């Protein structure tokens, strides 16, 4: 969460302004929260609040942060997906269950026996925002741009081992692979595989997705003021929405994606009608919001965005599997969920979310249970004896390690709780959280022993094939996990022709990792969307963190 200095003294060193802090209410209980909020909203004169409400036909979506750019092939930001899924479409779409692939721009497709050739039949009558007809050539251009080394897409591996993408005729695309890639369709549903218009890309060059955009999505680019507003207007021709929606056409004329970084301000904006819908709700407010009759809260249970701690398994202390196992036993995740996440999250007791494709229940059963007493015993038996300061020592090596992460409320709360839990079993964890601007650079170094992170994923293979291949060191494989068996299982899962074969291979990998403990899975983030009184039809989707996905079925009553 970006921090806004409420009382930061200005550079000229004048007096402080602490009014922001002193205005706070005094009551705490969740039951009173709604009342406090309403009274806060009530501070605005009714007329003014109404005046700030967006005009009819304009949906105001509140967001926490902005993205660096909105070019699907040149960003991986979760925030970019919030707009990109609306700005353009993909060949296939994802169902609410996050497992089933549905038609998108392709109305049907076939896969060859050897799993290397995908043939997509495109829908007729699809048009770009500028009115230009969409053809197979646009698919070829977009995929080739995505995987072109010159584009430098950080996620071009998601396109699979492409041999060639061909336009057979205007409405047929052949996607040929060098070897089978069992999750190609899942990857082609992500915004990274979004279709872009060649002429606009060439016209805008580096500023594509910054100054403008031309796609085949339900909404078109109108304007973008970074860190403030992104305005999208309805694509009037659009009637080819994914079948998961009741109405394949957009029903609001305009969408304003407005950035309000401060959680409390965002919350007040939803309640005063300045914003219509948001997925960025501070978790402490969930219970209070549920009690406000004019607001609607909907949850997406199939949401895969996990917080975990990873260990650099080749560093001193961390290279001892006993330490990693003891850490996994010492941390009281349920208490963390309650205190830090206000019980809104879910305890992660497996590497993969149980609702995700190819989750292995058998692997999850091997997860070390919460038992600090057993953790202490395990360490004692392994020769880690408590030193004078309570921190364990073995062969002159203190059980201490350095953790890096991004400076953010939940990371801070979770890591302090983990730190206290580990201190109780005699392991010292030093926390160093970095501002988001430098954190990613710091997280690519070998300076730290452990790190905390959260990430969205589509399936078990998607998650593990990203983090654990030896070839992905030092990032995103920040654990320096280098294991031939892991690489073999990932390859087997990726190239499997049968879903069952893939499930078995990736299930084995889940079991292998659960026993080796290169991670400490912590909390699964929930996805809730709150919408205001004039909004109907909001159902959170959550693909790559984007709650509103295509933005269809949403209506404004006034």
């Amino acid at each position, binding site marked *: 969460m970006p921090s806004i200095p409420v009382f*930061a003294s200005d550079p*000229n060193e004048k007096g402080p302004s602490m009014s922001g802090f002193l205005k706070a209410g005094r009551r*705490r209980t969740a039951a009173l*929260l709604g009342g406090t909020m309403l009274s806060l909203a009530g501070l605005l004169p009714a007329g003014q609040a109404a005046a700030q409400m967006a005009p009819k036909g304009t949906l105001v979506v509140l967001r926490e942060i902005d993205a660096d750019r909105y070019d699907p092939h040149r960003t991986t930001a979760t925030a970019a997906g919030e707009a990109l899924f609306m700005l353009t479409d993909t060949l296939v779409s994802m169902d609410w269950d996050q497992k089933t692939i549905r038609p998108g721009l392709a109305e049907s497709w076939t896969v060859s026996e050897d799993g290397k050739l995908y043939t997509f039949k495109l829908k007729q009558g699809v048009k770009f925002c500028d009115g230009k007809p969409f053809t197979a050539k646009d698919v070829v251009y977009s995929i080739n741009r995505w995987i072109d080394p010159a584009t430098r897409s950080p996620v071009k591996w998601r396109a699979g081992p492409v041999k060639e993408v061909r336009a057979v005729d205007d409405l047929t695309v052949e996607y040929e692979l060098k070897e089978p890639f069992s999750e190609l369709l899942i990857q082609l549903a992500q915004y990274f595989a979004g279709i872009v218009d060649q002429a606009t890309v060439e016209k805008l060059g580096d500023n594509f997705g910054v100054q403008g955009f031309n796609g085949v999505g339900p909404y078109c680019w109108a304007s973008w003021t970074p860190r403030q507003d992104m305005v999208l207007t309805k694509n009037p021709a659009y009637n080819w929405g994914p079948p998961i929606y009741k109405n394949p056409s957009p029903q609001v004329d305009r969408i304003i994606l407005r950035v309000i970084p401060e*959680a409390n301000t965002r919350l007040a904006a939803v309640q005063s009608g300045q914003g219509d819908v948001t997925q960025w709700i501070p978790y402490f407010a969930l219970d209070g919001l549920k009690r406000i009759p004019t607001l609607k809260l909907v949850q997406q249970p199939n949401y895969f965005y996990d917080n975990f701690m990873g260990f650099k398994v080749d560093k001193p202390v961390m290279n001892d599997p006993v330490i990693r196992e003891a850490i996994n036993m010492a941390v009281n995740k349920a208490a963390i969920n309650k205190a830090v996440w206000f019980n809104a999250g879910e305890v992660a007791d497996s590497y993969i979310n149980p609702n995700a494709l190819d989750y292995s229940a058998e692997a999850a059963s091997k997860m070390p249970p919460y038992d600090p007493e057993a953790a202490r015993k395990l360490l004692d038996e392994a020769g880690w004896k408590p030193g004078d300061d309570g921190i364990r020592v073995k062969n002159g090596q203190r059980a201490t390690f350095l953790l890096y992460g991004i400076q953010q409320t939940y990371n801070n709360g979770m890591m*302090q709780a983990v730190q206290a839990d580990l201190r109780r079993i005699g392991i010292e964890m030093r926390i160093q959280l*970095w501002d988001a601007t430098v954190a990613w650079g710091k997280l690519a170094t070998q300076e730290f022993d452990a790190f905390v992170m959260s990430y969205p994923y589509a399936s078990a293979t998607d998650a593990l094939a990203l983090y654990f291949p030896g070839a992905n060191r030092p990032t995103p494989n920040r654990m320096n996990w280098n294991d031939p068996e892991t690489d073999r299982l990932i390859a087997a899962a990726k190239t499997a022709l049968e879903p069952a074969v893939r499930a078995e291979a990736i299930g084995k990998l889940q079991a292998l990792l659960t026993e080796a403990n290169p991670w400490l899975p912590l909390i699964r983030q929930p996805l809730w969307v709150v919408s205001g009184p004039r909004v109907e039809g909001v159902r959170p989707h959550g693909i790559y963190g984007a709650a509103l996905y295509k933005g269809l079925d949403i209506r404004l009553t006034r």
Partner: protein
Amino acid sequence: MSGANPVAAAAASSATAVPPRRPGVLKRLLREPIAALALAVVVLLVLAAVLAPVLAPTDPFDNDLASAMAVPGTPGLLLGADGQGRDMITRLLYGLRATLLIGAASVLLGGIVGGAAGFIAAYYKRVDGLLMRLMDVLLSFPAILFGLAIAAIFGPGIPAVILALSIATVPLMARIVRSAALVVMRQDYIEAARATGMGDGRLIFRHVAPNCLSPMFVFATLRFGQVILLGSALSFLGLGAQPPVAELGSMAAEGRGFLFFAPHVAVLPCVVIFIVVLAFNLLGDALRDALDPRLRV
């Protein structure tokens, strides 16, 4: 808040160069009720910080997630608990300790280096221009920017904050000391000391420095309040104390997200910062008045 410009305040008293430790300064100080109160509060705060390990009812690092964000008045938790369920009293005492440490260390370090630069600039005319332009350059950087840069290079933490605030204090102290020393250097006793063949170093330490102490002291006290505020701001931005170390600014930052839900977590450390800064500013003002002969009745 006094609102006084410390540079002007210190310069005002420097112009008269009152010798330090003259009898009656403390007495004059205590005649002012507000000054006496400020001094009492400062003494109490320093005592509380020094004795934190004795006074704190609980271990500052041990959490109890079950009582996270308990309201003030909860049995056993007079001021409530923070997001980790740690007693706010303990956290505030240790936070005060870290905050005062940051303030004292930065003012001391910045004061010594800045003071030395000021004396050298005043005494050796050849380096005066160069040294003071260097100070002007330093003065043009906001302390927050220094903090950001240093934290980016060395990593966030209390040492980084102290370093940043020390550097930000150096040019201010250097200017005040230089102006005070220039006045002292024109005095006859300096001529006399020089005539006796006294060396440069001895002259500065024995005769120039002691006569510049009072503006230095006033400035240091006023600067202390500012530095604490800046240090808290840097910690609030995540550049200062790293968890689980308690520091008032980072405590405020941790509670900021829950202002509606558990206001005490953010408000209490802010109130303590407010009291510390106010007390030091009032004390600095009163000290200046007490040391200024023009205000003597």
